[in-house]
């Protein structure tokens, strides 16, 4: 029996209604998590999640599944640590095996400046409650002998910040577990339905228009990835978002257990092993803004070269498949969550290349915002108006993809 046979998903499908208290656009991790926490924490189940394709078909099913909290700003560390903690308890809570596996993350650097930066990261993370410490090359070698400290002669490893609580989980299972939990309690999930417009009355949202008729709603939450600009256009909202493709690839089965996530800050490349034994390699975003899901040989060539400089055993493996997704990149590489100028229209966007790790905390915070109408303190710094207030959260160095 394989993973997919055994993981039968127990989803409760419901007939669509004309009107809901809450409509969530986007049936990915963040949309489903918002529905899940609305149902489980706040008892709000008159909720419809509208998904253009099938649930988890977008970036929630395309990412490299790294869960970590080693960010570079106090607000970010606190937020992602909350998410990391929620992930730890998510298997028990949803009673589903999410293949959550704590691995430990090497965030390596090849420059003197980078060494100072990683030491600073370790201090900041410790101060904000995340577990990160600096490790020297000899310590790296003891913990993970597969890493080539010479970096292929070109990129010597000068140190790393080590984040022992970093983990991976199976992304599909996270989506399914959240969908199951929400749908069991009464949430409706509508697949293969595209939102084509958002209805407003005055400056208040009243519902959404879809390709199969209108749906009324008191609150509309956009949890869309890749196409957020198109959704915001529907209510005349300007977003600081640009869509960039991000690609990744996996190799064939590596016979040994590689229980680490290895990332190079300077090469913007990260490697981990999936539950099936494949080595999963991700790297930086494509530089041109684009809505294209097509993957490229250029990426494969450049990334394979970079990854095999610090993990030489990758040279013996073969590349099995490659794919791409479209990411909402914000100008400061931090997410955008919370209220907008349009009453009743909430946004969870700007998840760029860091969305998967934030699914539980993002969903929990958005659910609290929808249920209480007040922005939780945890996500208040990530508000859309931070650009107007000159309170941007510039943290591109922690994304690992830029």
């Amino acid at each position: 029996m394989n993973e997919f046979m055994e993981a039968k998903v127990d989803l409760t499908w419901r007939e669509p209604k004309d009107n809901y208290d809450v409509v969530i656009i986007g049936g990915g991790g963040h949309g489903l998590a918002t529905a899940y926490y609305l149902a489980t924490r706040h008892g709000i189940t008159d909720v419809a999640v509208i998904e253009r394709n099938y649930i988890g078909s977008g970036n929630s099913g395309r990412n490299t599944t790294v869960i970590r909290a080693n960010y570079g700003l106090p607000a970010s560390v606190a937020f992602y640590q909350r998410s990391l903690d929620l992930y730890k308890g998510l298997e028990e809570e949803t009673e589903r095996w999410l293949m959550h596996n704590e691995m430990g993350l090497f965030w390596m650097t090849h420059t003197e400046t980078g060494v100072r930066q990683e030491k600073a990261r370790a201090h900041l993370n410790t101060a904000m409650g995340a577990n990160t410490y600096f490790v020297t090359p000899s310590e790296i070698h003891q913990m993970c002998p597969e890493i080539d400290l010479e970096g292929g002669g070109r990129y010597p490893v000068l140190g790393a910040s080590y984040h022992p609580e970093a983990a991976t989980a199976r992304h599909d299972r996270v989506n399914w577990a959240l969908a199951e939990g929400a749908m069991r309690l009464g949430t409706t999930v509508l697949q293969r339905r595209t939102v084509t417009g958002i209805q407003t009355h005055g400056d208040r949202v009243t519902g959404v228009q879809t390709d199969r008729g209108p749906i009324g709603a008191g609150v509309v939450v956009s949890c869309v990835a890749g196409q957020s600009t198109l959704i915001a256009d529907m209510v005349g909202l300007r977003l600081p978002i640009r869509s960039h493709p991000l690609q990744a690839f996996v190799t064939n089965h590596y016979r040994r257990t590689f229980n680490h996530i290895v990332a190079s800050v300077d090469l913007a490349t990260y490697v981990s092993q999936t539950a099936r034994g494949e080595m999963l390699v991700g790297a930086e975003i494509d530089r041109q803004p684009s809505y294209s899901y097509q993957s490229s040989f250029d990426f494969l060539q450049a990334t394979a070269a970079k990854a095999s400089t610090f993990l030489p055993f990758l040279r013996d493996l073969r590349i099995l498949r490659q794919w791409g997704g479209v990411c909402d990149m914000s100008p400061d590489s931090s997410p955008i969550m919370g209220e907008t100028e349009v009453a009743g229209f909430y946004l969870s966007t700007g998840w760029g290349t860091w969305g998967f790790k934030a699914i539980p905390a993002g969903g929990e915070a958005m659910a609290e915002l929808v249920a209480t109408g007040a922005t939780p303190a945890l996500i208040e710094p990530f508000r859309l108006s931070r650009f107007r207030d000159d309170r941007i959260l510039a943290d591109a160095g922690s994304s690992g993809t830029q």
Partner: protein
Amino acid sequence: MAFLLRCPNCGSRTIEEFVYGEIPRVPDSITDENERDLDFAFMRNNPRGWTIERWFHVFGCRRWFTVERHTVTNEVRYRSPKSSSNTS
């Protein structure tokens, strides 16, 4: 997706040789000067479809040029240098 760009000076090269340059277009509907500055600095049109943009040939002639590109298919239309100056 990788694609080729035709630099007016150097010819067809892979996209990796170029640096992207956005042409910010603040909508006319925004009239307040401060609001226009905010929009110029942070907000993005991020069009899905044809868009006019600048590219810098950083690993080549190090000159800017203007093309029209489709952001879904990455198809590129080239413009003559004279007509490109008054399109933004």
